């Protein structure tokens, strides 16, 4: 899908499924997210885009909650 451009996960509406491209964060966070399955090319479904509260996503069959700051750092397509 060429017309879609890179955006942070925090901009994705609830119910949408997107693909992770990269995480703009330091090594520690990156590795922690990776160990929980948040890796490039993984499909993420946003269950809830919390304003202002945290974010709920579904990855590889399990639900996860992310702080908004992290959702801003995860770039998706």
């Amino acid at each position, binding site marked *: 899908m060429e017309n879609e451009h890179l955006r942070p996960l925090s901009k994705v509406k609830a119910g949408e499924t997107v693909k992770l491209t990269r995480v703009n964060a330091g090594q520690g966070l990156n590795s*922690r997210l990776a160990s929980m399955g948040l890796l490039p090319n993984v499909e993420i479904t946003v269950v809830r885009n919390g304003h202002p509260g945290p974010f709920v996503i579904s990855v590889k069959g399990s639900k996860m909650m992310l*702080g908004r700051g992290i959702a801003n750092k995860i770039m998706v397509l």
Partner: protein
Amino acid sequence: MKKLTVALAGNPNSGKTSVFNMVTGARQHVGNYPGVTVEKKEGKCKYDGYEITFVDLPGTYSLTAYSIEELVARNFIIEERPDVVVDIVDASNIERNLYLATQLIEMNVPLVLAFNMSDVAKQKGLVFDIEQLSGLLGAAIVPTVGNKAKGKAELLDAVVETAERGNQRHTHKVSYGDEIEEELAKIEMLVAAKEQQLAEKYGSRWLAIKLLEQDTDVNAKVHSKEVLDAVTAGTEHLRDIFGDEPEIMMADRRYGFISGACQETIKSTVESRHSTSDLIDAIVTNRIIGLPIFLMLMYLVFLLTFKIGEYPMGWLEQLFGWTGKTIAGFWSPGSESWLKSLLVDGIIGGVGGVLVFLPNILLLFLAIAFLEDTGYMARAAFIMDSIMHKIGLHGKSFIPMLIGFGCSLPAIMGTRILENRRNRLTTIMVIPLMSCGARLTIYALIIPAFFAEKWRGPMLWLIYLIGIVLAVVCAKILRLTLFKGETIPFVMELPPYRMPTPKAVAIHMWQRGWMYLRKAGTIILAISIILWVAMSYPKPSRQSLEGLNPQQVHKAKLEHSVVGRIGQAIEPVIRPLGFDWKIGTALIGATAAKEVFVSQLGIVYAVGSSDQGSQTLREKLRVNYTPLTGFCIMLFCLISTPCVATAAMTKQETNSWGWALFQFFGLGCLAYAVTFIVYQVGSFISG
């Protein structure tokens, strides 16, 4: 009997604890890993001629050096060399859970995989080709249902068999693809040549993998410049090719390996649909009713802990009162035996002081175990997160802080629900600022003495509010200074809801209660006895007491004791707070327990401590002090550490006297500073 050590590894929420309970029953020992605040649970079991010790490692997703929990788990496996590692895998969520398994495979440990919650997996329509998957992963696989105690014998059979077979080199390893493997091979060779000791202990491939992942812990162990140079060159080369950190690429390959293995061996027969968990989530995390539901549940927890706890507490108090009287009855009335005083006031009083908190602790942990095991705790963190995050704490910190309004002891113990150390320490440090139940007795004495009826409610409210505001400010300051850095990436799994088993909840509760009695209890007892000595000795001479009425005798004795003398000695120091030596003496006595303040003040004013006494005491206070001093007394009692038991508990939970003393004196200084300012400004304004 031959002995075996088995480590249990697994993701959080994989049902690791239920498997641990299943294999060990209630014969468990809870402690800490040396030097860190990470909990270590051990349990024993006899099977097939073996005595097997199970060690429950912290729940982790991975084995990196980024968190203490992961390091602890990894170091245990490397340093202690358990005979077998059992990885508890949530079979209903297999891919994510096998990630840890790939790392254990890389560590070359004799491995058994427990596919736990296999009943849930079955319901979800997952069918495993266990034999083939076991072959692909190079480890025995045993389906279990921990909370229904299914698969115990099979698991133990596999453990014994794996242990007897010993450490076989895993032929099955994750392949990282040509580019990464090339670099790994180079580093591996260098490590084997230059760092022989390390290579022998850790295995050269594992070292190479960790070095390429830029693992800080392993990196610090390697001293050979050639190895480190090769690592830097390799990392940069890979960064160039992939445009990403090697570490991420390697995690990606591990997941690739897992998904390859799963594709061949797992069949899903049912399309996943909306589960009950989603439905419950829609209600309890609802934007509008989520918070009220949470607050209501918290109210129930509070009610359970303190209101229901009141009854057993009352029974215990009666029991100790009766025991004290019975023992005192062995002496003739009015006798001055030091042994009687030691037994009745020192020991029975001290033991009673320890035991009365036991019901609170058991009930609180009953509630916590229930909230955790059902999966609601993660949602609670979710709901409170936006508020708690602002003061740099985790959503879950709210629960122990709330419990702090009842009593600091269970609250500090309750911080065990927080995984992050900095978070936990910060929460422990500010918990005493939540005005506890014992301090209420002080407010109940002071407020009616100095303030008109209509101001009494708002005054009490103000005191509690000051405590909360100070806690928020202190937490924020601590997070910015002492506990700064390591911004906790807030990523948390929301596990599916489950019904907890009574056995699991009971074991949890029992462990906490026992731990309180054994660890904190002994320190609390020792300190209470020391304080009793300080309040009873030295005694005034018999002649000086002649002709005094009983109340005056009490007063004279206290004045003459160590505590009384200290109270008099520190008068110049506390004068700027508006306090005299009488208040000083009562404050020192109150370090045993805050409510003691009232009875101590009763003694120094020689009025006794009955209801009538507290009325007369209020009159005495009104005559001797201004409302400003009254307010300052409440302020000082609110901010300073509630009691020595709190310090003992902090020592126990942080594993260090340093933090306990920091909290004790830190709060003391804060209390002094705040009271000083309030009193000085207050007296200036009122002229």
